[in-house]
């Protein structure tokens, strides 16, 4: 680890060396003026990422009941009518992970509830990504959590409640960074 830190330090020195212009003649000393400024408001349509603390979660909300209806229409054909899987991944159940026959699902493996919202909003449904409203994404998220017995049938999911949901495998990840 010490050696690795030293390595990164040496690389930083090398990069700084380039930046101050001691290597190739046309390496920029500072900004060269290409590109245009853009405001965070102008980025809004692309700025869809959600952090693990819930940063970025939009207004809106969803219920388990609304989620079930949406799920049966838009998700069940690939993921199974109860999330048991089909052409696409199983979403529910899975059991123990300390076996070579483990099944990784949202319920058994995913550590953060915010990732469910983020992934559905950016990539689902498969044939029409980014077509759901925020209310629909909240509802689908609620239904998948309910199918996994992580929330109750009457719980409403929104920007305040979602980050508070404790996923069963929340402590199952060891950051290594190598």
């Amino acid at each position, binding site marked *: 680890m010490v050696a690795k830190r030293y390595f*990164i330090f040496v*690389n*930083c020195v090398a*990069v700084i060396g*380039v*930046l101050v212009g001691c290597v*190739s003649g046309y*390496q*920029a000393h*500072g*900004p*060269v*003026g*290409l*590109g*245009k*400024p*853009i*405001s*965070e408001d*102008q*980025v809004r349509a*692309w*700025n*869809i*990422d*959600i*952090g*693990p603390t819930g940063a970025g979660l939009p207004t809106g909300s969803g219920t388990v009941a609304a989620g079930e209806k949406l799920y049966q229409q838009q998700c069940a054909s*690939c993921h199974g009518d109860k999330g048991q899987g089909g*052409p*696409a991944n199983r979403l529910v159940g899975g059991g*123990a*992970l*300390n*076996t*070579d026959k*483990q099944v*990784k699902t*949202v319920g058994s*493996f*995913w*550590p*953060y509830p*915010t*990732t469910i919202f*983020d*992934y559905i909003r*950016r*990539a689902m449904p*498969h044939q029409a*990504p*980014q077509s759901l409203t925020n209310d629909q994404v909240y509802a689908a998220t609620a239904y998948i959590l309910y199918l996994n017995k992580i929330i109750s049938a009457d719980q409403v999911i929104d920007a305040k409640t979602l980050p508070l949901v404790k996923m069963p495998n929340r402590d*199952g*990840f*060891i*950051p*290594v*960074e*190598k």
Partner: protein
Amino acid sequence: MSKKDVFSKRRDFLKSSVAVGVSVGGAVSAHSSPLKNQDNGFLEVDPWTKTQGSGFVNPPYGLPSKYEKNVVRLLPSPAPTFLTGSRTPLQSLHGIITPNGLVFERHHAGVPDINPDLHKLVIHGLVDRPMVFTMDDIVRFPSESRIYFLECSGNSAAELKKASNQTVQQIHGLVSCCEWTGVRLSTILQECGVQSNAKWALAEGADGAAMTRSIPMSKLMDDALLVYAQNGEMLRAEQGYPLRLFLPGYEGNMSIKWLRRIKLGAEPWQTREETSAYTDLRADGKASQFTFSMEVKSVITQPSGMMKLKSKGFYEISGFAWSGNGKIRRVEVSTNGGKSWNDAVLQEPVMDKSLVRFRFPWVWDGAPATLMSRAVDSSGEVQPTMDAVIKAKSANTFYHNNAIQPWRVAANGEVTNGR
């Protein structure tokens, strides 16, 4: 052994390689070249020497010879509902560069059709000046070209538990090597003014998966490239046209294709691809996360699975070695299943985080043999055996399998997966 004997035997060996290409491609091809000349040992002037060749037989963008039509990427068979990738025919490649049409693919929502005039890259988050760049802007920046390998972290995964595949393409075909051209990401980041609390960045694609990974700023400020060209031409659509991130030595999925956005932040985002996928499950059920580097690895491609040695005698054992942690320092080859090892020759130039071609002369005595290669990189890491990988990471793990691949040569010359 006369030089002529050696040549004819090597030719047989190459023929057997072509045959593998046929079986892998799934098509049957009969070579139509007249073999009559070789029958009586006397050469004749060939018909193609006694006439003018055809005009420009190729379209303006040239294609390989029709006799090479079976050297192609391998699609999964049977085709899955969601087609996710294809594999490089490592057994048919020469040198270290993967031709653009043979570079492996891995997609998370197919290949988008992007007009480069409409493509934009946004850099925002913890920067002083959020900026948007067109492709015209990006190609005006100071550029550089580097030869780097690209490997999917799921490469060779099936072999962790059992020998489930047969050819080197099926088992290890999720690695390729190109000359990549683009701009240092650090150069473009300084247009935006990186704030001191930016420790991570989210890179996002413009594809239907809006594929995202969190990347440490230290890597982005080190050797990360914004790439728009590969092997001298603009990126192929399936490699991220018109713009991809390239993180040398890191698992392939982090080099986000069709790159549209980089957002700087203080912590990783915990995206689906860095939690539920691309993490390494351990024996105790915990998963190692952010295992970015592709570790030291090598594989023999000549001869390899499903080839057949037609006679005893000389063969050149050859293959690839690479490491995400630096240069390849040494490759050893064993022809007796690991009982003894000898140094292979490394083809110069040996470059950082590039495929390296190694070669080892071998005279096959006709007895059963097990061929293995073992690479060592500049950080001193030694490529492990499969048993060592399973012991260190557990049989639960899937990604980052860099184990030694044994190829078993039977007395009849048939080469099979020795795992």
